[in-house]
């Protein structure tokens, strides 16, 4: 897939990610549906396959999941530069795509977080700050367990998905009760999945 991007296109890419940044409550993953609408449906700067594999690769590779945004920028740049086969120019464009999307998605939220948390840390003995932290604690813990629950995948087809649930439940028990290295567990999961058992 190749395309031509003008400076105003790059600018609107930047502006779009900047405007999404402050909406990403609960993590960058919550903005994914809107990014799909913009990049794939509206602008057609990214193919559906490129979009999906950007997310899959970011989840399989080490590092924060927000790196899927970097991969999307990389692919938009590559498409604009004529694909990897075009060599240096394409890689340059791809790197520009990475910078534009990552700075866009991170800069506003990071600035807000820095300002808000340094203020809260200075005023950590204030009753409102304490109330916010202890009030939110039970909700946040429940959110984590709910995330684990939702991530196990499709809950509508127990007959097909039970091995996946069993793997998640076993992992939960092992991590909770033992000090097994997390990488060992992930490698086992990859092995079982690669063999097609789940």
């Amino acid at each position, binding site marked *: 897939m190749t395309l031509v991007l003008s400076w105003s296109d790059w600018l609107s890419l930047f502006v779009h990610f900047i405007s999404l940044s402050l*909406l*990403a*409550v*609960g*993590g960058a993953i919550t903005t994914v549906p809107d990014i799909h609408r913009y990049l794939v449906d509206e602008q057609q700067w990214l193919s559906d396959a490129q979009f999906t*594999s950007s997310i*899959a*690769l970011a*989840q*399989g590779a*080490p*590092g*924060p999941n*927000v*790196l899927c945004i*970097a991969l999307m920028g990389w*692919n938009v740049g590559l498409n604009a530069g004529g694909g990897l086969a075009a060599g240096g120019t394409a890689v340059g464009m*791809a790197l520009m795509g990475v910078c534009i999307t990552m700075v866009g998605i*991170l800069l*506003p*939220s*990071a600035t*807000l*977080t*820095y300002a808000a*948390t340094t203020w809260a840390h200075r005023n950590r003995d204030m*009753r409102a700050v304490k*109330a*916010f932290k*202890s*009030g939110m*604690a*039970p*909700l946040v813990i*429940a*959110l*984590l*367990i*709910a*995330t*684990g*629950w939702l991530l196990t*995948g499709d809950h509508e087809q127990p007959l097909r998905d039970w091995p*996946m649930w069993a*793997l*998640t439940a076993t*992992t*939960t*028990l092992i991590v909770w009760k033992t000090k097994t290295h*997390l*990488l060992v*567990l992930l490698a086992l*999961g990859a*092995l*079982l*999945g*690669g*063999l*097609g058992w*789940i």
Partner: protein
Amino acid sequence: MTDTVVERHAPKNKTDLFVSFTLLALQGFGGVFAVVQRELVEKKKWLTLDEFVEDWAVAQILPGPNVINLCIMIGSRHFGLLGAMTAVAGILTVPLVLILLLAAAFAGVADTATAQGMLRGMGAVSAGLIAATGIKLISALKNNPMGQWQCLGLAALTFVAIALLRLPLAWVLFSLGSLSCAWAWYCHGKLAHLKGTP
């Protein structure tokens, strides 16, 4: 997992901060969260479990990727603005380079059945990692001024709303969250009154 010993360390310098977060990111397949808890709380002891829950609550409520927000909070607490930047650079730089190399090297491979299976397997395991971390954090609710059982009730309500009823995150956080914070405000006030401080 004990509330008697409060042993806490701090990052030695910015290099220590950068390297620690890089190593942490490189162990986090399918998201960094579970590793953060194990490394920073259980191994390095930069945070107690209670502090981690409080910080995580703030990191999750503020917009932006949760792990990046947590990096900003921890980095800025020890070394100010430069510390925040160092921590974010630490968690992003090496994984970013790695994921771009992976994307360039394995363009197309991500769509094969084996690769998809491996991602499914690792996904199921990382769901378990996240759920187990949430379960471990429950013990931090013991010290919550709202009372352990009330906290568990709130957590259960949140889990039902998000995981079973699939209500929108923002809606749940706003409604249950403001209720819970108001109650925590009241409890903190009562505590302060009992201790005789205004």
